[in-house]
């Protein structure tokens, strides 16, 4: 039987009920939201279920929505079922004051650096990660540069007068 988006959705709703929500299909990829406490349960279910078998973690990253109070940081998982060639994406939201999310390193070895990168740039604290430290930035850095409060310098600003470099 072909693994359709509707089928995946039904299986998930059967298992988790109302906890999985906001199903959409932007550009054909099934996308949904999961409460952040359930991220590992959903990952494990998608991995183990004999019909779903999403056993390849394609990508993991975070997005910062400063206006989304209480749910400022989104962590996005892209999963791939290589046998049936279906991709899905799900998101969890966490508050920026306490960005604790369970780590997926027990299930996927590749999540290790992906989570370190996400921590490095967004400050998502992956609980249970074996080696959660900065990876691309210097260790001494004390902020998370991909957050939206750190804009790239505005080219039109006038308060800086740098004659040497002809600004």
């Amino acid at each position, binding site marked *: 039987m072909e693994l359709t988006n509707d089928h995946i959705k039904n299986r998930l709703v059967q298992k988790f009920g109302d906890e999985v929500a906001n199903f959409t299909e*932007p*550009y054909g*990829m099934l*996308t949904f939201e999961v409460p952040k406490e359930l991220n590992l349960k959903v990952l494990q279910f998608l991995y183990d279920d004999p019909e779903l078998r999403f*056993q*390849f*973690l*394609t*990508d993991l*990253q975070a*997005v*910062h929505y400063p206006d989304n109070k209480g749910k400022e940081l989104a962590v*996005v998982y*892209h999963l791939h079922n*290589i046998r049936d*060639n279906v*991709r899905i*994406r799900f998101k969890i939201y966490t508050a920026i004051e306490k960005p604790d999310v369970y780590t997926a390193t027990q299930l*996927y*070895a*590749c999540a*290790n*650096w*992906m989570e370190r*990168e996400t921590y490095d*740039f967004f400050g998502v604290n992956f609980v249970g990660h074996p080696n959660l430290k*900065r*990876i*691309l*930035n*210097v260790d001494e850095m004390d902020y998370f*540069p*991909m957050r939206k409060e*750190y*804009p*790239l310098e505005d080219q039109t600003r006038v308060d800086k007068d740098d004659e040497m470099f002809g600004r």
Partner: protein
Amino acid sequence: MTEDLLQHSGEQNIKLPDGSIEKQTTTLNLGPTHPATHGVFQNILEIDGERILSAEATVGYIHRAFEKIAERRPLYQITPLTDRLNYCSSPINNMGWHMTCEKLLGVQTPKRVDYLRIIIMELARITDHVICNSVIGVDAGALSVFLYVMQYRELVYEIYEEICGSRLTTNIGRIGGFERNFNATAWQKLDKFLNEFPAALKEFENLLQRNRIFIDRTVGAGPITGERALNYGFTGPNLRASGIDYDVRVHTPYCSYQDFEFNIPVGTTGDVYDRWLVRNQEMWESLKIIRQAYEKIQQFKGEESEVYHANVPEYYLPPKQDVYTKMEALIWHFKIIMGETEIPAGEVYHSVEGGNGELGFYLISDGGRAPYRLHFRRPCFIYYQAYPELIKGSMLADAVIVMSSLNLIAGEMDA
């Protein structure tokens, strides 16, 4: 002995970590700039004699914050950033980025554009594999094969030069197609390459494939099972060498790859030799694809044979003479250069088969002029994590060839 060393380090004001003299193993710093690493890779190895006990990889030496920069740039200005990911096959990155934008914008490209792109992408795949495979030769002690195939990479770079004007960081193509049609010289150079390269590749293959020394050196070095490779997020030739036939070109055909006949070579053990074989065979398949695309392009007649871009004036610089004489063209020119075209809101993930694996672009747009968030799925960043596991228990010299066989590109890893 220990006291002598301690006294010496005290005199010289050297602070040694506790227990570093008493312990029986050696800590060796391989890299970050070492001729054997072919890039900025640091590995802190714990060795016992010449055997590796553990390794810790450090990355990020050339991190350039592309994802942050991309959040302020209009789509077309992000193309040069993608060049600098895997710079051995930058056209594939460029095309992958254009296709991501086209998916978001809903642009349909004409068949001829797809075929032209395939020619460029497969040429890029050949240059990428040529470098990786010949560097395995270099690290195993055979420098001549590297110099020998390098001149054919030059021929490919000349083709790029005819099409887009640059060689390594190509910034080739535009959203919707190419900025200009391939000229006669480009076709001529492609002919020359297609005629001359197979003989050289054959000779390259003969020098290494059944070479006793090369086989002894590479078989069994850094193996990984298919299951572990999947768990580590391997993609591309490295995954296929472990026996998993996953190729984005076949699984999720993009750019009309479904119109082509080609095989996906797979290995069994996932060691250095298998990776070498898979890449080598892929070059032959790439040549096959290029020939097919060439023939298909010859079959276009009339107006179709001159098409080199889709009809997307919003993203496509109009001809210069029109800019000076027509109002609309002038407006488009201005809007494109200033990057004032708003892109539709949405989120899209698109991936292409890059030189070393699945290169993915995850683009979130909130409807502004620049992406809200752009994430690159860089294949070698993901599979490099497996490196300590691959070299654990092997000899120091094996660590070097395992690293070169993974086709690691520092620019891609650090983004």
